[in-house]
């Protein structure tokens, strides 16, 4: 083959314009965050500080799609590099956690406020309140800890709050049955009188305007989308084995189910399903900007370009919990065995921050419930 022929052939390979657009957005964002070269003195001092912080915080390369960095992460992150305490959150917002020592709100300056003896909690749609649950009590609480109302019900699990600022609903399970109650604590009903639901947290559609649309998984593993105002079921999926997590995309167009061996992506309007082979996914988290992260016991994955890419593999131990920062720049997961939180920077830089001694700071190792602005 002539050299000219090879040149012509190589030059004819098409360039993916969408990839270029995606890459430019990321490059532009990184450039915007770059410290411009103004003062040589200032730059060098900033560089020194950044270098010190990076070393202390186990800085590592982390691409937004993520795949190119798995090995770098594997090499660089480790318990010995973790900060000894949560001095501050890496992004603005308030982090809600709950567990054996109750529910807590962590402010971005690292200060913590305990809300009460609630092992489960989640934010209201605009993070003005928290819905919390003890074994036999559902409560709505202000971030200051002031209780608004309570409801006594047996074996409460998975309280989830949805709706608009003026009209909200709370879904929760009691003794395995799905209930819905208005945001002011009135009108508690057993939704549809349906059979027991699967142990998967229900999820409110985020952009329904005046309507309240809830997705949940039945005991038979069928995803059901319910108009909670009319009581009409919009669609019901086929049955999926081993459902573990359910999440809406921020634009409300997709609903994603983590099953035993697959992740199912539903068209939220029609219920049409597309499957991705990925067994063992235990948590799903959509970023406000639409990125989808998935958690397996020993890795964090990111959906990009229709594929799942391994984003983070811990040096050891099982991962649990997955939440995005409100600005979509950081992803937080937990390593309970190492008593660590791991913050993964997803945009505007490429750091990993590990924070240790989490149990000592909260009284027990908590679960991640949400990170709100």
């Amino acid at each position, binding site marked *: 083959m002539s050299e000219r022929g090879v040149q012509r052939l190589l030059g004819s390979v098409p*360039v993916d314009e969408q990839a270029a657009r*995606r890459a430019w957005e990321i490059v532009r964002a990184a450039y915007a965050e770059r410290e411009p070269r103004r003062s040589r003195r200032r730059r060098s001092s900033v560089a020194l500080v950044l270098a010190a912080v990076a070393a202390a915080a186990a800085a590592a390369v982390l691409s937004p799609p993520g795949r190119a960095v798995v090995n770098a992460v594997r090499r660089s992150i480790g318990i010995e590099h973790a900060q000894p305490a949560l001095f501050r959150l890496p992004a603005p917002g308030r982090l809600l956690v709950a567990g054996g020592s109750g529910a807590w709100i962590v402010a971005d300056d690292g200060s913590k406020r305990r809300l009460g003896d609630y092992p489960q909690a989640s934010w209201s749609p605009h993070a003005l309140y928290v819905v919390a649950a003890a074994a036999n009590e559902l409560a709505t609480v202000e971030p200051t800890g002031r209780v608004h109302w309570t409801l006594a019900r047996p074996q409460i699990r998975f309280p989830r709050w949805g709706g608009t600022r003026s009209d909200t609903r709370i879904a929760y399970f009691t003794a395995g049955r799905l209930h819905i109650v208005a945001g002011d604590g009135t009108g508690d009903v057993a939704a549809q009188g349906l059979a027991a639901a699967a142990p998967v947290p229900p999820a409110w559609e985020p952009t329904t305007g005046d309507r309240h649309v809830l997705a949940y998984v039945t005991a038979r593993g069928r995803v059901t989308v319910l108009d909670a105002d009319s009581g009409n079921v919009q669609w019901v999926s086929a049955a999926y084995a081993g459902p573990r997590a359910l999440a809406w995309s921020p634009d409300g167009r997709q609903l994603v189910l983590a099953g035993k061996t697959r992740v199912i992506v539903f068209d939220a309007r029609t219920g049409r399903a597309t499957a991705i082979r990925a067994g063992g996914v235990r948590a799903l988290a959509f970023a406000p900007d639409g990125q989808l992260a998935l958690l397996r016991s020993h890795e964090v994955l990111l959906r990009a370009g229709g*594929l799942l890419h391994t984003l983070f593999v811990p040096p050891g131990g099982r991962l649990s919990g997955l939440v995005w920062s409100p600005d979509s720049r950081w992803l937080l997961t937990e390593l309970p065995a190492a008593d660590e939180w791991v913050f993964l920077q997803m945009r505007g830089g490429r750091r990993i921050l590990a924070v240790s001694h989490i149990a000592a700071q909260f009284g027990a190792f908590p679960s991640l419930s949400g990170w709100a602005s």
Partner: protein
Amino acid sequence: MRPERPELDRREHVWVRDAQRGSAAALEHLFRSHWPRAYRAALLVVGDAAAAEDIAQESFLAAIRALDRFDRRRPFGPWLHRIVVNRAIDWGRARSLRRELAPEDAPEPAALERDPGGHARELAAALAELGPEHRAVIVLRYLLDYTPGEIAELLELPRGTVNSRLRRGLDRLEAVLRRETA
């Protein structure tokens, strides 16, 4: 075809200078000017569209991180290409260690497979039979138009190694393309 043509060099010099001073517009010029070749080079070395996007994107991010230290008297292209090709070689070497999970129902087509004429598909098959180091040398020579001496410098290889890889690479390509065509 070379990116180091005097006119492009002059414009690039200005873009790099302005980007160092904080001009996003200048950076965009640099990006638009170099993305297609960076992406194509990565794609031809790794043969995977998603990985090529990662690699090209990461290379630009690395370039931005080092932009302040960049010597404007030197051309930007070779600097970027060195990053792209070395990352692509690393990716190719480590590929077997990585896991990817493809959708069952709608596999993402690689860019190489979208060529309607089918030549790119044959090219992908031919390149796939070469190792990443050989592919990189072919790409640097015949896509990015570097001389064997420049390739030796970029990849920190002896000149003779570059020449032998080029020769062997071309022979393999020819053999595979003949077989595919037949």
